[in-house]
């Protein structure tokens, strides 16, 4: 997800750079709109990736706590 988000940000950056290029038929405001859309989508993906990573970390902690409890009972 992080890599796809980074690629979307890269596309947004390219669109923003080329918005006033002479050989493009895309109006500048459309280029900026799409760039903002892609940055927003990338942000959403990064937030999802961070939540998944955090959830994975919490599950690891619970697993460790359970194992420690089992070991202490033995």
């Amino acid at each position, binding site marked *: 997800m*992080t*890599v796809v988000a980074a690629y979307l940000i890269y596309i947004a950056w390219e669109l923003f750079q080329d918005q006033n290029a002479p050989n493009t038929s895309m109006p500048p405001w459309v280029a900026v709109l799409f760039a903002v859309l892609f940055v927003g989508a990338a942000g959403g993906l990064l937030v999802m990736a961070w939540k998944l990573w955090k959830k994975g970390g919490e599950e690891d902690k619970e697993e460790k706590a359970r194992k420690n409890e089992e070991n202490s009972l033995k």
Partner: protein
Amino acid sequence: MDKPVVNQSTIRKMDPVALLKKNAMLIILVLVYIFFTAMTGGRMFRPNSFNSLINQNAYVYILGCGMLMCMLTGGNIDLSCGAFVCLLGAMGGMMMVYWRMGTPLSIIALLALGIAYGCGLGALIAYVRVPPWIATLAGYLAFRGLGTAILGVSSTNSISFRDSPDFLNMFSGTLFKTPEGEMNWPCMIVGIVAAALVVLMVFKTRSTRLKKGYEVDQLAMDVAKSVLGVAVILLVMYKLALSGGIPTVLVWVSAVVLFYSFITSKTTIGRHFYVVGGNIEAARLSGVNTKRVMFIAYLNMAVLTTIAAMTTVTRFTAANADAGKNFEMDAISACVVGGVSASGGAGTVLGMVIGATLIGVINLGMFQVNLDANYQRVVKGFVLLAAVVFDILSKQKQK
């Protein structure tokens, strides 16, 4: 010979919705192809379009196989493959053109370089536990600079391979070449043999599964799969036969794709990749050497990058500083669009091939309708985003 035992319980009932979901990317590929064929007034259906599709996307299929193996291990990727292609092209140019090492020795040296890099990268990721994206980001940043510095020996910052016809013919050009428009019969014969093999494989697999009492699809499904496979192969080979013959690079792509298809579906080491990606701790406790699997994934990627580099430089007949630009993103996109899970443990070579073909068709179609470069970027972005969202929603529904 014993007749296969058929019980009602071994025949899988056909669920139209599940069938549509399973083959969604294939259906989308067909629809997109029809769309662009209509938009271009039939130009997408011409023989030279098929030729262009294969030649322009050969590197995606080759790198896609390597990226698939990396992503299977847990969503890991290789960001350095594009820059490594540039470096290998530069090194190949130096060896063949400036040092006059000869084609066979240069190819062996390039493969040795690829293996050395793969071993180093694999060791760093598997044994030193450096996160793959960091380890490969270093390569992404360093290799292009190194390649450009090497190419600086030439005033044009590129090295031409025109004086190495052996090397060029090995990875580019056409087998059994005939003039365009004239039917190339060796190409058609290869197509007919390939189509026959596909039918044989489908029914042999069915027969084996029935004998062992495994679940199989309905006969109509297997017949439909065979007919579709035969139709696609014969259509592609017919178009290639009219465009001058089999592109040499198609032989390399087919060999790589078939090899990895076999590895991922029929071998123990292939299954280990899925198991590591599915649950690395469970894999380790089951006796799978997870570190070795990670090491092999990145060594394998480096070797495939070497092959992709050779097909790329021979296609352009020169090594230049822009070679390999965005290759890693194309390979990742092919895998993601083809249904390879971004978190690992799921995905097939066939899915990656369909994903790569879809992206190739979209790129070629946009080029043929002369779509503005900015609109092309927007389309690519939306295709990738749609594929990732589809993957996330599928996982959530499974849970």
